[in-house]
């Protein structure tokens, strides 16, 4: 059964179209990623999902509910962690937890949630004294405090250090393992690659691709990349004349050769013929990053 169904969602703010045409479905128990560059329409899509905004056109159904009409029921069953939402500075972690628990029919065990998020010893700490990672973890705890069936997490790891980021990822997997369907909004590729079962790539207010992370990478083609520092200058044409090579780029002293097939063999033999030594030779497989750039045709800002 589909937990979330979005069909031909369209939303504009005055003259700007935030979401042109977005459709996707999310299945029970998966981590579904909404990926896209900044300003692609991710947050608006999520706001329509959670009933914070009314779509101009199209339909949204979450747990069989209409997010606008069945607003109260939806809020009981969907936990949301939003960007740019904070708590009062002088509220303590424990107070926020108790307060938010009182809003729900089936509140989760607050003590266990704090323990799971490593915030137990911060119970009495005021919000303003928490670090960025702790604030983010508290936001996740509050999104889970109503024992939701669906958790929507928007730009979860923004501003976290690599250690905190990894811990947060473990946490999201843990949440999913407890049977919660997770919608994860992100523009961080390794986050999407590591966590998501399926991804919707949104760009310019449209879904440009909908697949598993591996499927998206495959879609871009089995391109390899060869990166090395030639001991002396190499005429680009030596390489571009090879059938395997599709592009040659200079990045400082490094040459980056992109291509298909037996690229490594072809390039190294040409170099050997011309007695050019290749230092620091590395072969890179296409990643979700490449897929993202190819499919959105722009750099992540």
């Amino acid at each position, binding site marked *: 059964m589909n937990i979330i169904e979005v069909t031909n969602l369209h939303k504009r703010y005055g003259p700007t179209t935030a979401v042109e045409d977005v459709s996707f479905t999310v299945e029970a128990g998966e981590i579904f990623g909404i990926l896209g560059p900044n300003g692609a329409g991710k947050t608006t899509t999520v706001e329509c999902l959670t009933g914070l905004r009314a779509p101009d056109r199209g339909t949204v159904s979450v747990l069989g509910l209409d997010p606008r009409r069945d607003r109260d029921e939806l809020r009981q069953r969907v936990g949301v962690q939003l960007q740019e939402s*904070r708590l009062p500075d002088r509220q303590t972690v424990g107070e926020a937890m108790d307060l938010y628990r009182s809003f729900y029919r089936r509140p989760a065990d607050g003590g266990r949630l704090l323990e799971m998020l490593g915030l137990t010893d911060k119970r009495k700490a005021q919000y303003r004294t928490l670090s960025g990672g702790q604030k983010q973890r508290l936001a996740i705890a509050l999104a889970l405090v109503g024992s939701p069936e669906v958790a929507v997490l928007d730009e979860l790891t923004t501003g976290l250090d690599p250690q905190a980021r990894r811990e947060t990822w473990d946490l999201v997997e843990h949440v999913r393992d407890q049977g919660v369907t997770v919608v994860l909004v992100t523009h961080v590729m390794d986050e999407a690659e590591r966590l998501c079962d399926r991804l919707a790539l949104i760009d310019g207010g449209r879904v440009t691709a909908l697949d598993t992370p591996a499927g998206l990478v495959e879609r871009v083609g089995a391109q390899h990349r060869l990166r090395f520092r030639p001991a002396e200058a190499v005429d680009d044409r030596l390489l571009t004349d090879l059938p395997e090579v599709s592009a040659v780029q200079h990045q400082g002293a490094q040459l980056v050769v992109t291509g298909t097939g037996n690229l490594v063999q072809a390039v190294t033999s040409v170099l050997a013929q011309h007695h050019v030594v290749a230092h620091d030779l590395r072969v890179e497989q296409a990643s979700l990053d490449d897929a993202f750039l190819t499919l959105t045709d722009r750099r992540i800002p």
Partner: protein
Amino acid sequence: MHALTRLTIAEVRLFLRDPVSVFLGVLFPAALLLGLGAIPALREPADEFGGVPFVEAWAPAALALGLGIIALQQIPVVVATYRERGVLRRMSTTPVHPSAMLAAQLLVALGAAVVAGALVVASAWLVLDVPLPQRPLEFVASFVVGFGALLALGTLIAAVAPSLRLATGLATFTYVVAMFAGGVFLPQFLMPDALVRVSAYVPPGVQALLESWSGVAAAGGTAAGPPLMLQVGIMALLAVVVGGAAATLFRWE
């Protein structure tokens, strides 16, 4: 109801943890009145003040000072901060509508105002020999309506100000105007008659408070102001109109 109770308790805690609002809004009016009362001349009956001592004539102004801090500084700044930092947005993703948070804020403000008022009346009575309000029901009515109108103004500022900075600026401006009209900065007998007449209707209604407390007119008994109930009625109307505008215009984010 349950959520509103919990929210109100939470907001009371937050209010008490903010030393500036507690001091300026709740303790300062009584402290200032007691400080001025320490000057012997200000405890002597004076003709300028309708035959009562300065401290008695000025006590409602001291109260207005605190009510103004609560309604025109605390409320707009807290609400604008809550909006700007996404506290209201966070709340709107839960089963509880963020309006419950605003209602809790207003209850806290009312509570703080009642405590501030009780402190001023009690310290004036116990320490400065100012009699208790002579027309208690009318005093309470003036207090509630005057503060309600002030609170409506504060909420309207919070409702429409696009940023925290602007909310703070507008709130401070309104505060200074309300305090000036209330005779906080300048005794009313020094003000032009026209201004005195208008100021009878400016929240929190210092003249109405004074009249129901001491039975003297604010302008020193020379120019009898408009009837008490007219002052209170007009402020009540103002509270309803301004409060209604605030509710209609309120931006949640």
